[in-house]
């Protein structure tokens, strides 16, 4: 790796705000040829916005993008692509019905006689690209059915076909298994040898140390550190990412722990998670920690019945739940706040009132009809209880901020007076102020005797809120750590599968 004075890509003091939210305060970094730079930071630190600026998806309010030292302006993603920047997103955007080769070549198929597509050349070129990446994949097969790992490779090959000089990879290993990660690292090394620059967004510390030369850490919208990985330890990194007093932020109050309300026994879903067993007692907050892709959300969905389990069962207050029936889970007293607020948690086109009451329709019905007044009162009551900031209950729920939207989801579920509350990433994409409100709320709920299962990828949140931490790794529970013994290191170790830790 040669240290060239002129970086391939650089960002200088970029800023971006969405209304009142300052998503990016100081975005500054640079990537040189043959350099693999990690971009780290918690959720909400500003990574996505920075990437969007680099990729031309979003225009910064201030600051400059520099290519080979010269300032440029990207008006759209195509500009960025033409300048040699490629973003490999977590969700590949490929054409499932078309072949790998055609996916790579779409719109620029090689032409033969009479402007007809030269299929052989197309396949050869694709095969060549894949070979260059050191990956064996049949260029002629359809994309449908390819694993995420393979689809990623196709996306990388696509980027290369555009002569990408800088590849930005957004949490590329999130959904990958061990061997697939190894293969990806091989690809990254190949790209590195060819002089490309790579921006590697990840929160898997082990991987960052394994493959990256330099690390940029972001916090609260600004770049706070920029160093060589060789000079850092994992603790250093974690400290730079978190960098705040934990206790002040998460007011977890003590609660009397009662009987086990939720009992999960050897729950299994083929290929997703295996033999998951645990219990959550009344008054307890149990955190389910782990890396993205460990299977935590899938466990929650299976408990609630959205997905059917292939083995094992779930009990609420000793009574066994039928497999795969959300209505039964709800009747038994389980509430589930899903991970994806916009797609799963809320119906964006409907009003706040409608969203908040959709789970309690039976209770609002008299003689078959919805009592409009009762509906409004219920929504009002919860809006007040949760201190929702809104203009009118009839407004579209999409007009609310992320934090307030989450409150509506919580209102919806709390109005069912659940015994067990499962929350998946309770404070993702929420501003700091609302975050602590949500935490206080969860704490209060536990105090009232509700069993809370909290899935979270934010270590500070886990450490601050949980009475017990369950850690998952690749579909299995690899650790159960009590509050007293929990720290980032132990959790991370269990999350990366490096040690089986028992409480």
């Amino acid at each position, binding site marked *: 790796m040669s240290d060239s004075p002129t970086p391939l890509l650089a960002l200088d003091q970029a800023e971006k705000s969405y209304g009142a939210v300052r998503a990016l305060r100081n975005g500054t970094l640079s990537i040189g040829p043959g350099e693999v730079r990690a971009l780290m930071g918690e959720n909400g630190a500003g990574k996505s916005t920075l990437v969007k600026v680099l990729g031309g998806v979003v225009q910064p309010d201030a600051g400059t993008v520099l290519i080979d030292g010269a300032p440029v302006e990207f008006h759209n993603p195509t500009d960025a692509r033409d300048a040699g920047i490629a973003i490999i997103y977590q969700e590949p955007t490929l054409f*499932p019905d078309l072949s790998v080769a055609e996916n790579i070549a779409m719109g620029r198929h090689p032409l033969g006689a009479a*402007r007809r597509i030269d*299929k052989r050349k197309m396949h050869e070129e694709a095969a060549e690209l894949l070979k260059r990446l050191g990956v064996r994949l049949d260029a002629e097969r359809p994309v449908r*059915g*390819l694993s995420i790992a393979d689809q990623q490779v196709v996306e990388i090959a696509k980027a290369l076909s555009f002569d990408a000089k800088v590849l930005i990879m957004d949490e590329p290993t999130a959904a990958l298994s061990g061997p697939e990660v190894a293969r990806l*690292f091989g690809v990254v090394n190949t790209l590195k040898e060819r002089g490309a620059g790579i921006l590697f967004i990840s929160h898997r510390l082990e991987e960052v140390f394994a493959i990256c030369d330099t690390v940029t850490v972001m916090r609260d919208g600004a770049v706070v550190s920029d160093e060589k990985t060789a000079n850092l330890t994992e603790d250093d990194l974690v400290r730079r990412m978190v960098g705040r007093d934990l206790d002040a932020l998460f007011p977890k109050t003590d609660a009397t722990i009662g009987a086990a309300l939720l009992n999960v026994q050897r729950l299994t879903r083929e290929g997703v998670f295996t033999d998951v067993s645990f219990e959550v007692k009344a008054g307890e907050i149990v955190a389910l920690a782990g890396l993205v892709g460990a299977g935590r959300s899938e466990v929650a969905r299976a408990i609630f019945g959205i997905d059917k389990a292939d083995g094992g069962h779930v009990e609420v207050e000793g009574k066994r739940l039928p497999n795969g029936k959300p209505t039964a889970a709800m009747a038994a007293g389980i509430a589930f706040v899903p991970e994806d607020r916009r797609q799963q948690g809320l119906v964006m086109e409907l009003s706040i009132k409608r969203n908040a009451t959709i789970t309690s329709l039976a209770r609002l019905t008299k003689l078959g009809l919805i009592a409009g007044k009762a509906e409004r009162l219920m929504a009002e009551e919860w809006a007040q209880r949760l201190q929702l900031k809104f203009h009118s209950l009839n407004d579209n729920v999409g007009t609310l901020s992320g934090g307030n939207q989450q409150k509506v989801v919580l209102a919806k579920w709390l109005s069912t007076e659940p015994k067990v509350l499962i929350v998946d990433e309770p404070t993702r994409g929420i501003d700091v102020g609302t975050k602590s409100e949500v935490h206080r709320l969860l704490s209060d709920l536990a105090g009232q005797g509700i069993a809370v299962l909290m899935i979270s990828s934010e270590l500070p949140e886990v450490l601050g809120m949980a009475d017990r931490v369950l850690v998952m790794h690749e579909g299995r529970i690899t650790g159960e750590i009590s509050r007293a013994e929990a720290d980032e290191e132990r959790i991370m170790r269990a999350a990366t599968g490096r040690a089986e830790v028992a409480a």
Partner: protein
Amino acid sequence: MSAQTETASGGAVAPEAGAEARRRTDVIFRVRELGIVGALGLLILVTALIEPRFVEADSLRNLALNAAIFAILAAGQTLVLVTRNVDLSVSSVLALSAFMAGTLLSDHPSLPIPIVFLLGMGLGAAAGALNGFLVTFGRVPALVVTLGTLYAFRGLAFLWTDGRQVNAETLPDSFLNIGTGTILGIPTLALIALVVVLIVGQYLRDFRSGRELYAIGSSPEAARLAGVRTDRRVLSAFVIAGALAGLGGVLFTARFGTVDATAGNGYEFTVIAAAVVGGVTINGGSGSVYGAAIGAVLLGTITSSLIVLKVDSFWQQAAVGALLITAIAFDRWIGLRLDAALRQRSARRAG
């Protein structure tokens, strides 16, 4: 690092797995088209066994004639379906074009026939352009647009014809011969249909803009990101579908001679059924014109078959409906099996 050996060992298994996956999908997709060819063959065979006159020259000629116009319309519909749209207005466009061709030739018998064809296709193309503009730039769903134009164009046809009709006697023989004559024993109409199907089929298979249509239907989001000019392509798909409907209209007049405003009534559903039976998915992204054409032939053959077998012709429509549902269900089943099989293969390789 062990990563290298892992890749190597994983890689060694890969090419066979990859090739096998490809072979399997090829076969399954061939099966789809083979399936209808097979069904067609079986149908003809069974009918012929019971009533040998079914495979006599005249009877086969009729089969080809009946299917020809539908095949042309189905080819155009394929283009639109592949982009995840639909064109319900084809029957009305056909009517307009048919009547126009009829009146033109009646009033000006010396008009060169190719001009009539061009005008018919031009009319169809204009109608298609209207559909296309409303869908792309107007952002109105294709279902709504073509439902509206289905009405509006049919109304226009009624207005224009004003109760009159074109009569075969007023049309020049050279024109009518196209509809009913043969070249080397094969009906001219069938030959024209064949040529159209070949041209459109090749376009979809071998030309960039044709392939982009598949991309748009397969994943509109990805197509946009890939820089495909979605609006332009979808517009052209509608224009071509319209032009082919126009062509169908002129041929309709040539075939039947007597044309009024009700020409082609109800064709739209048969055409869509033909395409879907032929493997063109209603969600877009896959299917071929050849399949759609075979679907048209199959549907036409069922009708003739039932007549020849002296089965209540009333069963025809029901049979067509049942066939369409079977085809859709079969496609879904195949799709699910395919997904599972390919996923297993990938997982095994990576795991």
